[in-house]
């Protein structure tokens, strides 16, 4: 014979949120920021092959923090969604907002109905053109989607890093300045992050259809000089 205990919905939500936050806080953070001519994403990531930042489509990039297997599955789903949508309609019809909404719905569903909430936070960035704006969409573990005007910070220490970055940059800057500010914000006043432990991806027009570029360590060192 089993006993059923009543759990208030407020309590249930609180427990789930706490669980997800704990999981996310274990990983390192990511800064995504708009600079003069593009969007940069900077992650602290000691691995040189398990990436947190990825190309999704011609003008869309993805970044995820938290449990790797969970956000990597979301990354793959995003690439499939984008390539499938572009194949069905046209490349110009692939929109980051639509993708961000799908992510938000899925994370929201998993938070309320899943066995456990996903322990991830993700960022969908879009480089603008004549018909679409440059955008950063941040999607939290419970499905909250926010449209960040200039920069977004994901991960455990988000509030502190956000404050540091906001204090250092108040207008659009060139890539080298924004990257320096992002790395300084991630590191904090008491430590420096080795270039080998940084993962940097940008979205920028270089005359090609595909605008995503993963920066190598030497390119990052050059920009940080």
């Amino acid at each position, binding site marked *: 014979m089993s006993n059923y205990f009543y759990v208030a919905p407020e309590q249930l939500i609180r427990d789930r949120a706490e669980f997800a936050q704990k999981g996310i806080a274990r990983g390192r953070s990511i800064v995504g920021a708009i600079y003069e001519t593009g969007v940069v994403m900077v992650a602290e990531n000691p691995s040189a092959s398990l*990436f947190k930042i990825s190309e999704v489509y011609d003008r869309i990039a993805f970044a995820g923090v938290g449990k790797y297997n969970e956000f990597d599955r979301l990354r793959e789903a995003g690439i499939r969604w984008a390539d499938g949508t572009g*194949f069905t309609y046209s490349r110009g019809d692939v929109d980051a907002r639509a993708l961000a909404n799908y992510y938000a719905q899925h994370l929201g569903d998993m938070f309320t109905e899943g066995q456990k909430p996903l322990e991830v936070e993700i960022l969908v960035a879009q480089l603008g053109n004549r018909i679409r704006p440059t955008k950063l969409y941040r999607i939290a573990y419970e499905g909250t989607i926010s449209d960040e005007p200039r920069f977004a910070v994901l991960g455990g220490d988000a509030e502190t890093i956000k404050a540091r970055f906001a204090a250092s940059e108040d207008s659009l800057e060139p890539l080298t300045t924004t990257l320096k500010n992002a790395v300084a914000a991630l590191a904090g006043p008491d430590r420096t992050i080795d270039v080998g432990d940084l993962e940097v991806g940008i979205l920028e027009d270089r005359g090609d259809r595909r605008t995503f570029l993963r920066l190598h360590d030497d390119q990052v060192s050059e920009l940080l000089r």
Partner: protein
Amino acid sequence: MGLPLFSASDDPGPSFFHFAQSAGLTSPTSSGTALSPHATTVIAVRYDEGVVMVGDRQATGNYIASRDVRKIEPADRFTALAISGTAARGIEFIRMAQLSFEHYEKMTDTALSLEGKANYLSPIIQRNNLTSPLLVLPLLAGWDSSHQTGRIFEYDGAGGCYERLDFATIGSGTPFAENTLRLGFSAGLDRDAALTLGALAIYEAGDNDPSTGGPDFVRNIFPMMVTISSEGFQELANEDVGERFRVINERRTQSGGVAGGSLR
């Protein structure tokens, strides 16, 4: 389309084609007998630093459907794909191949090898050709960066993939183009010699096959000429191509339409 999430056991992996099949995005197989515009000649010739490809521009149904079709397209920066057969299926096939290579690269963060690309296309061709009368036969050429050489892959109707070390042709003008290449090819041609030979092969095909378009001096439309080398896919400018065909045409005019006893 919603967010395509899969469990680990039925995940289609980095293959766009298999994902597209599971999502119902690929063309249905059919058993009709309708034939849309087809017929073509495209050749590929290996040279010392890559591959030259030349293709005619005409789409033929019961009469000429189009005079400026592009039958050679970059599948990615270092790979070219040419099509012969049904235009509609050929165009879909090129889109599928382009997207598949890019999809693989994004999913895995590594580029597919040239041989991997060639093999990947086999089942797609097989699926189309064995289930539909709307045949498509492609030709793949690319720069193999791991072996630092240009390579050519041709296919048979059942999707069989064969590497050619010298040259390959597809389309209805094959007998004429292939004979020209057979007589004129030698290993280690340089770029210019390969371009000249390729142009001559297409000229011959256009001259003898009613479904292959030759140089069109009236409309200034010429066959497409491309090279694939360590520099990537490069298409020759229309004026450059026009000049090469004008030279051949001049010679032929002087000799009264025959090759004049030599391969030129």
